[in-house]
């Protein structure tokens, strides 16, 4: 066992020399902590929940103080008041509403802060849901990270199985599996995901949990071919190894060879790919939401991607508004900034780590 331990030590040694990878690891640990802590939040349900003046859930009702807190009203030099997204003022009739004079402490949600509004992705709905940054980030971590990890794990499992089979047996099995991967790889990911989700939704699966399941299915459908490809190329190499032939010569069944030799040898590259993809999925979710597709039913369950996307579209709206009418209005930049940064850092750290791993595991790329 000592030798095996030495191998790990070696990998760790090369990983440690890679500063970026270490940075990535640190950030990931932070996210992991946030994830664990976020689990203590009340499970998301389909009943409207909002986080406004306090971090705890408060039922939505018209007489709720910060119910009409949003940023809907715009003031123009002329003094006329007209509704339009992206601009805000302090409603005089709402004492609880704190004007978004923004400080770092607010952003981090150091104390309850009702007015940093994260609107529902569905801009058409008249009554958006509000979170303060802190809550958004917490729940976002839980949903985004949890979802990504789940998806990637499943996809990798399927890919590992099929890839190993096709690579090891070759012949017609290989042909079939590879053609199928070709098919799925040539359909752009986002489009396929949306298609699957839409079909699911239009056949009635619309609640939050159902949506989660749908998203999962859609992404797995899209994702497994990548892994199948990787594992296949690996097992093609392993298959030609003499030690596999030796195992055959002493009567090993194909199943045994796949389990004992092929799969273990394909694990590392798959792992690297997985860590890359975990970072990619929130991005795709964001993109999907951004182009206006309503992923989650109302109320919006915070998921970085969708929140950021919604914020970004408001940003653009603000620009057009202010640009055209030359209005004096501040830009609610934080609505993009925080979820965006969350995605950015998560994906970035994961990539750092993955790349470091690749270098450390691949002797050719070692420095």
């Amino acid at each position, binding site marked *: 066992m000592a030798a095996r331990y030495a191998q790990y030590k*070696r990998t760790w*040694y*090369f990983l440690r020399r890679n500063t970026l990878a270490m940075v990535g690891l640190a950030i990931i640990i932070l996210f992991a902590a946030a994830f664990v802590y976020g689990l203590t939040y009340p499970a998301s349900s389909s009943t409207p929940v909002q986080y406004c003046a306090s971090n705890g859930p408060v039922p939505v009702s018209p007489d709720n103080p910060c119910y009409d807190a949003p940023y809907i009203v715009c003031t123009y030099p002329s003094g006329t008041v007209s509704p339009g997204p992206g601009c805000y003022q302090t409603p005089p009739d709402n004492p609880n509403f704190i004007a978004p004079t923004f400080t770092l402490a607010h952003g981090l949600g150091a104390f309850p802060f009702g007015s940093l509004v994260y609107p529902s992705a569905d801009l058409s709905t008249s009554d958006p849901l509000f979170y303060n940054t802190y809550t958004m980030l917490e729940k976002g971590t839980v949903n985004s990270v949890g979802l990504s990890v789940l998806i990637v794990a499943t996809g990798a499992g399927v890919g590992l199985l099929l890839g190993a089979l096709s690579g090891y047996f070759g012949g017609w099995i290989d042909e079939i599996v590879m053609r199928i991967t070709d098919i799925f790889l040539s359909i752009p990911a986002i489009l396929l995901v949306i298609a699957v989700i839409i079909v699911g939704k239009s056949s009635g699966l619309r609640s939050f949990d159902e949506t989660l399941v749908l998203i999962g299915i859609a992404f797995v459908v899209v994702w497994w071919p990548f892994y199948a490809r990787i594992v296949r190329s690996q097992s093609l190499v392993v298959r030609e190894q003499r030690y596999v032939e030796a195992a055959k010569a002493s009567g090993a069944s194909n199943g045994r060879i796949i389990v004992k030799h092929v799969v273990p040898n394909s694990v590392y590259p798959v792992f690297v790919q997985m860590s890359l993809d975990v970072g990619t999925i929130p991005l795709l979710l964001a993109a999907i939401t951004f182009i206006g597709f309503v992923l989650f039913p109302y109320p919006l369950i915070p998921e970085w991607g969708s929140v950021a996307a919604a914020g970004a579209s408001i940003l653009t709206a603000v620009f057009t508004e202010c640009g055209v009418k030359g209005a004096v209005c501040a830009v609610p930049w934080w609505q993009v900034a925080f979820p965006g940064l969350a995605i950015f850092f998560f994906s970035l750290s994961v990539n750092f780590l993955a790349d470091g791993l690749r270098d450390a595991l691949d002797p050719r790329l070692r*420095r």
Partner: protein
Amino acid sequence: MSAAQPISPASPAVDTGTPAPSPLSLPIEAPAAAPDLRPVVLDVRNLVTYFYTYDGVVRALEGVSFKLRRGETLGLVGETGCGKSVTMFSVTRLIPDPPGRVVSGKVLFRGADLLWGLGHEARFIPVKGTNRVKVKRSFRRVKAAQARVGSVRGAGIAMIFQEPTQAMNPIFAIHDQLGEVLLEHRGEEVIDGLMASTPDLPAVRAAAEALERSVKVSDEAMRAAAKAVGEAAHLTSFGTQAFYMARQARTSGQGNLATEVSRAASRMRISGAQASFLRGERELRKIAREMRSVYISEMRRGEFERVNRGRLGARRLRLRLRRIPYRLPGIKRRVSRPLREETFWRAVQALEGVQIANPVQVARGFPHELSGGMLQRVMISMALACDPEILMADEPTTALDVTIQAQILELMNELRRRIGTAILLITHDLAVIAEVADRVAVMYAGQIVEMASVHDLFTRPLHPYTQGLLASIPRVDQPSKKLESIPGSVPNLIFPPSGCRYHPRCPHAMPVCKEQRPPMTVEGTGHNVACFLYNGAPVVE
């Protein structure tokens, strides 16, 4: 020496690590009794090369010294991991760096020390608690050193490698890879020849008719006639072209050869644009040559010639800028046509030199279309294209079949007789050495343990390792049911054995062998051995 000690020239540990003062480090030479009067072309003095790996410092070479004289063939023989190839690559600075590094030593070639400036290239920082050593390289200096040594590669020191199939670039045709060597080192002469060529068509026409007549006679006649055509065109390569056109005509049996040849000749005219392109090319080569001479003088005088480098660099830059239009794909193809054809036929000539039956097809072909033997011939022709003073062959026949190996060895012997370059033949096969080499150096674990003429070594092997090696070779020419073998295996060079590195496997091991490293001693003319069993006079300069 204890392995825990950090190994680096900077640290005191070096004095034990690199044997600067130890007797071994003194260069080896035949005693005055029978002085070899041929001039020394390569003088390697206690070369030390380490590999700085994760597991520790691999002491691959520990003070290797030898001399190579003009026209002789020195065989470097030993088992895997004894550092034969490392020696060759250290001499030409081709060891992969990182992890490898030439730590110290001298390599004198044309009076220039190829390893000049080694000390300033890197700093060595031992890692506490491990036997790793961190190497901090000065990128700029390493690059400069590479450029310097690069100036003697190819033209001065040529190399051929073990795996011909992997040693050739898979995506370029043979003539391309062969031609670029010619252009690199012989560019000016090639271009001059090309620009001097002014075919007077009537003469060519006449010669071509003669050639057509000769087709039916014989190969020799054809060659002669083709040569005449070449002279008529004032371009030898055109003669070659004509010859193969004639061959083509003979095999196909149709086509009026004479007119074809003269048409080809008329196509040879060089347009103005092409001429200016050629002039520019020539200028580039000239600058490159001067650059090389600057590098060499740097290594000779041992100081950095910033001024000359700068001047040449500026000239080259200006020229390149002026020639940008020629880089455009369409234009380039049209403008460089004469040069490309010239180089192609020169390549064909080079291939003829290594007895390839159908050089034109081979020249057009790609590496993956040729057999290992054929590729090795191509490699040899590539190495000898601009007759170098030294040819280093790293296991040239190991990857080949027995019958092909015989062909290649025959070829090498023949070329050796014809050109008379000095050859450093690296192989693990004593039999090959016996066939080809004049002198042999036996290496073990990064050191030369015995050095003698082939005859002496095989008739009177002195070092126990040499004896064991010879005994363990199965002979095809005599039945031997019981094979001798050397117990144990090659030591791990991270923790090399103390004293004589062979003592753990040596049947005659004595206590002293553990303590200190045996000095190289003279045992008869040109026969040196490093072993305590013999107490001849230590080798002296």
